[in-house]
C-alpha cells in the first residue's frame, strides 16, 4: 500500500513538473513569436552611444564594453563552476566545523550596491534630460557609495575574519572559495570605483552631454554587472552556505 502511495506521489511530482515545463515552453514560444526580429534586437542590445574620448575624435566603445563584459562573464562563470564542482563533491556543505558567518556587513554591502545602481541610473537619466547638476551629483554619490563597499570588505570584514581566526583560506574548502570569490569580486568593485572616479573628473570638465554619454553608460553597465555577481555571492556565501546539494 505504501509502495503504491509513493508511486502515485512520484507520478504526481513528475506529471506536475512536465505540465509546468510545457506551460513555460508555450509562453516562451509565444514571446519568441511576438518579437519580430530577434537578431536585430540582440545585435542592437550591446550598442551604446558614441563617446568623444581621444582628443575630440569620436570613438565607438560598444565593442570594448561587450568584450569586457564577456571576459568577466567567463571569469566569474569559471569561478562559480569551480565553487559548485567542489560543493557537489564535498557531499556535506559547508564542511563540518565551518563557522556561521555574520551577514550584517554583507547586508550593508548589498544595500550599498542597490543604492548605487539606482543612483547611477538616475544620473544617466538626468544627463539624457540635460540636467548636468543632478547628473554630477548622482555620479559623485555613486562613487562614494561604491568606495564604501571595498572599505567594508577589506577594512572590516576580512580583517575581522582573518585576524580573529574565524575563517581563513586554509580553514577548509569553504574558506578557500569564500576568500577567492569575494576577493575577485572586491577587486572588480575597486576597478569600478576607479572608473567612476575617472568619469567624475570628465563630468566636471563638462565632457558629457545628452548626445555624448557613451563612457558613462559603459561604466554603469560594468557596475550593474558587478552588482549582479554580488547578489549570487550574497546568496551562496552567506545565506545559502548551509544548503545541501
Amino acid at each position, binding site marked *: 500500500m505504501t509502495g503504491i502511495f509513493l508511486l502515485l*506521489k512520484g507520478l*504526481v*511530482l513528475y506529471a*506536475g*513538473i512536465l505540465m*509546468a*515545463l510545457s*506551460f*513555460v515552453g508555450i*509562453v516562451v514560444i*509565444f*514571446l519568441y513569436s*511576438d*518579437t*519580430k526580429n530577434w537578431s536585430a*534586437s540582440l545585435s*542592437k*542590445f*550591446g*550598442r*551604446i552611444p558614441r563617446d568623444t574620448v581621444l582628443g575630440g575624435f569620436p570613438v565607438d566603445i560598444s565593442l570594448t564594453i561587450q568584450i569586457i563584459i564577456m571576459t568577466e562573464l567567463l571569469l566569474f562563470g569559471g569561478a562559480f563552476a569551480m565553487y559548485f564542482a567542489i560543493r557537489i563533491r564535498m557531499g556535506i556543505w559547508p564542511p563540518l566545523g565551518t563557522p556561521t558567518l555574520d*551577514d550584517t556587513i554583507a*547586508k550593508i554591502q*548589498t*544595500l550599498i*550596491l*542597490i543604492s548605487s*545602481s*539606482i543612483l*547611477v*541610473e538616475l544620473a*544617466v*537619466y538626468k544627463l*539624457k*534630460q*540635460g540636467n548636468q547638476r543632478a547628473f554630477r551629483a548622482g555620479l559623485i554619490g555613486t562613487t562614494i557609495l561604491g568606495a564604501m563597499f571595498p572599505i567594508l570588505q577589506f577594512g572590516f570584514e576580512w580583517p575581522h575574519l582573518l585576524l580573529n581566526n574565524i575563517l581563513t583560506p586554509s580553514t577548509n574548502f569553504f574558506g578557500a572559495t569564500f576568500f577567492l570569490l569575494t576577493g575577485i569580486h572586491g577587486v572588480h568593485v575597486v576597478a569600478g570605483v576607479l572608473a567612476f572616479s575617472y568619469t567624475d573628473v570628465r563630468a566636471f570638465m563638462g565632457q558629457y552631454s*545628452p548626445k555624448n554619454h557613451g563612457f558613462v*553608460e559603459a561604466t*554603469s*553597465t560594468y557596475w*550593474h*554587472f558587478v*552588482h*549582479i555577481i554580488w*547578489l*549570487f555571492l*550574497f*546568496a*551562496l556565501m*552567506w*545565506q*545559502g552556505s*548551509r*544548503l*545541501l546539494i
Partner: protein
Amino acid sequence: MVVSIRFDVARESTVDLKLEDFGAFVIFTAIYAAGSLGLPKLHILAYQLTVGEMAAPFVAIFGIPAVFGLTLGQFIANLGFEVAPVAMLSPAISFVGLIAIYYLRKLSTLGGCIIYILITSLWITYLLPQISNISTSVAAPSAFLEQSVAVMVGYVGYLIAKRTMANPKAQVQKH
C-alpha cells in the same frame, strides 16, 4: 475572439531590449533577491509577505527588463534558501505570470496581477506538499492569500508610482 484579443494585446508588445535596460534588469533582480534574502519577512495579520512579489505589478511600468530581472532575482533567492530541486522551477512559473502582467499592461494591469496570483498560487499549492508535510488543503488557501496580499500591496504601490512619475523613457525621448 481569442485570436483577436491575442492580436490586440501583442501588437504593442514587441520586445525591444537595449543596453540601457540592463540597469532596470539588475535593479529588479536585486529587489527580489535582496528583498527575499536580506530582509526579514513582513507580516500582515497571519500572512507573510515576500518583498519581491510586491514588485510584480511594476512590470507594467518597466516592461521586459523587470520581467527578466524578477525571474533571475527569484532564482538567486532560491539559491540562498534551503529549497528542494523541484522548487528551482518556481522562477520559470513566475516568469509566465510576469509575462501575463506585461502583455496585459495596456488592457488591465489588475487583470494581469490576478492571473499572476492564480498561476503562482497554483504552483505553490502543488509544490508545498511535494517538499514538506503540508497538505494541499492547507497549502492552497495560505498560498493564495499570501500571494494576493503581497501582489495587491505592490499594486497599490504601482498605482501611486504611476500617478507620481511619468514614463521615464517617454520623457527622455521627448527631450
